[in-house]
């Protein structure tokens, strides 16, 4: 048994210590907003926050997440998250939408640390998140839009 604190609730899950947090969240806790895209930390679809920092849950064993605060797309809240999600909706960023939970988790991570990201900052923070629909232009726009809301 491993104790996982997800979105403020602690669950005892029956998982091997090496099970990636991704599959524990999705298959054992039934929170499916976090997606699987590659399993090797190359696509960002599985991004969650660990103590507020974006991490790839496919490469984070549950043993490492235990005792830390895990936040998934279902559990995000607060000023930054609201600004980011509102901007995503306003700019109609998603196409298929599959990558977008991960994109949003990375964007929240960026804006929590840096309220005035430059294009280069956005590229650096978001280049680990693939979007096969290539919604990148709108992602960039939505990050800036959210930054504007937060600065206002």
């Amino acid at each position: 048994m491993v104790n996982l604190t997800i979105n403020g609730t602690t669950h005892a899950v029956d998982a091997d210590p090496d099970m990636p947090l991704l599959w524990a969240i999705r298959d054992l806790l039934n929170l499916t907003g976090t997606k699987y895209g590659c399993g090797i930390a190359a696509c960002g679809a599985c991004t969650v926050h660990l103590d507020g920092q974006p991490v790839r849950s496919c490469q984070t064993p549950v043993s490492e997440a235990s005792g830390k605060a895990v936040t998934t797309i279902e559990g995000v809240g607060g000023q930054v998250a609201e600004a980011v999600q509102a901007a995503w909706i306003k700019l109609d960023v998603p196409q298929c939408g599959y990558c977008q939970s991960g994109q949003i988790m990375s964007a929240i991570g960026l804006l929590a640390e840096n309220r005035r990201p430059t294009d280069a900052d956005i590229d650096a923070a978001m280049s680990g998140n693939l979007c096969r629909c290539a919604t990148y232009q709108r992602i960039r726009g939505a990050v800036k839009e959210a930054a504007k809301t937060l600065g206002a």
Partner: protein
Amino acid sequence: MLAGHLPKLAPGSGAVSRRRFLIGAAAVGGGLAVGFRVAGAADSPVQAQAPFAHVEMNPFSAYLTITPEGLVVVHSAHLEMGQGSYHGLATLVAEELDADWSQMRADGAWGNTQAYGNLVWGGAIQGTGGSTAIASSFDRYRQAGAAARAMLIAAASSAWKVPKAEITVENGVLSHPSGRRAGFGDVIGAAAAVPIPTDVSLKDPKDWKLIGNPNLPRIDSREKSTGRERFTIDVKLPGMLTAVMIHPPLFGATLKSFDATQAKAVKGVVDVVSTPRGIAVVAENMWAAMKGREAVTAEWDDTKAEKRSTAELAASYRDLASRPGTVARDEGNVEAALSGAAKVLEATFEFPYLAHAALEPLNAVARRTEDGIIEVWGGHQIPDLYQATAAQVAETTPDKVRLHVMKTGGSFGRRAVPDADVIVEAVSVAKALGWRAPVKVQWTREDDMRAGRYRPMYVHALQAGLDAQGRLVAWRNRIVGQSIVTNTPFAGLVKNGIDVTSVEGAATIPYAIPNLRVELTTTENGVPVLWWRAVGSTHTAFAVEAFLDEVAEAAGKDPVAFRLELLSGHPRHAGVLRLAAEKAGWDRPPPEGRFRGVAVAESFSTFVAQIAEVSMEGGRPKVERVVCAVDCGVAVNPDMIRAQMEGGIGFGLGAIMKSQVTLDGGAVQESNFDGYDVLRIDEMPHVEVHVVQSTERPTGVGEPGVPPIGPAVANAVYAATRQRMRVLPFSRAQGV
């Protein structure tokens, strides 16, 4: 995806009259369902799909349902894989219904070919592809909306005892000057009993409020921005098991034996079964299945397997391209014109295998219910075919199969697969388990990349002749590559030895050239191939537009002016080209350090021109800006058109710069996004999209943004480096 030529399968089937229709309405769960049966569609003689036609297991299949709560649920004939088909069809219904946009919902429909058959393909099979959703459904979904509106008005008219003509509908509210008002949900009971209108008139385009509205919020942005959207990977059923597959290590290898003793000892592994498509490791969850898979040992018979490398295949293709092929188009006398030309140019272009690599790896869920119904959840891009295939695997009849059409995390053609691969696997595994549990088959990224179905490798050898005045007098294009339709239900697309999807964009070259020949050599090998976003035009447009640039230079002409001279018979090509040139400021030099290239291509009856602006960074091109002009007839959803052009440009750009699937000894070398490189945010150019105002019938936009970007960038790179990019991806070429 499915080619735009499918009507050619069934000569005359395009004659399905849009005027003749019967309307069927039925109350479903207290809701009003309105459906049309397109008379004539049933008569379409599409021989290849005959076994799948006319399946009508769901008598309530229809275009929309209005719920007692007043929601209008549009049942989409076309899969939603990111391209916005649900949004588009909801727009059409809402427009004619005068619904409020906030009351609109959409889901995926299936099981009634007469209602949902793809009319661009002749109507005899339901499917999504070839950028046809709007073109196929522009009339029927508007008619459905208009019919429902008429029925709601009739119901209110008898309830209020006022003439129908005095009732108006606006933003989802029926009202009468007397002050009476009702929402749609208030009158559906009575509306369902209203005699079905036999004739409805559609709005004059000048009265459209939603069609053409650039500010209409996308119907599913909220779900997709909050993690609430559900895909097949998210399907959970009581007692469901998860399976991962072990596919043959080489294409064409078959299973000899396997040992699962150790795998079955892995915690969470439930069973290991063999299916016609490989071994399945079945477990309580994905991680257990993946761990179990590691512990399986298997022996394969590779006697019949494809064992060549892509380098060997490419060498044989180059050789074939030096010889004549089957003639796909022949005008004038190309050999004579070439030998009489003042200047002859030659170039050979090479295109790799490409994976679709949609972000949601392939998956499907299957179960048998207690009453013997086989249920299949998945990205059902060709539902009729999948229903029939699932029935076959389950050894039952199609009427015993129920599909659940899920939204998909992309597809780019991959979910429109004639052999229904992952659906066969899910049903096979559930069956092998004796139907004791629902089963989700989930491919890993590695499976998705290695198990095949690629954009075929192609080689194009071109020659062009210029006369002494620099006029283009001869053009010969020899194309070598696999057919994606041979041995599939779509084999009817091969005519006189020519698979039209291999030569589209090349045989249909729009330029006025007096002596012109396009030849095709269709190769056969063991690598499974498929349509990949924009199909033939992914390579033909590159070869044509990059080579034409070489020709323009040899003729000493400006590439835009040269094209325009040759496009006098093709006003829509010329229109987008002029628009893109104007918006990009083509008549002025590019900014310092920037280099420009242009390309124009039609695919699926949509016309797109793009001008790419690149800079060079450390010997590598960086695409800074793309100006895109698109003519897709009536612009139903202008912002979706922009989104699809942006996405098509990013998708195509990643492919031409970096993506390839290679084989060594027949084994696929790439397995994940580390080796199969795709576009990332730092490489995304700034894209400006300009939509041509048009009253032509609407055509699709899911694919046509892809073809021009490759050649536009290649031409820009040439402007920067004097190096012609003829081997894709660019990452393979020296110096870049």
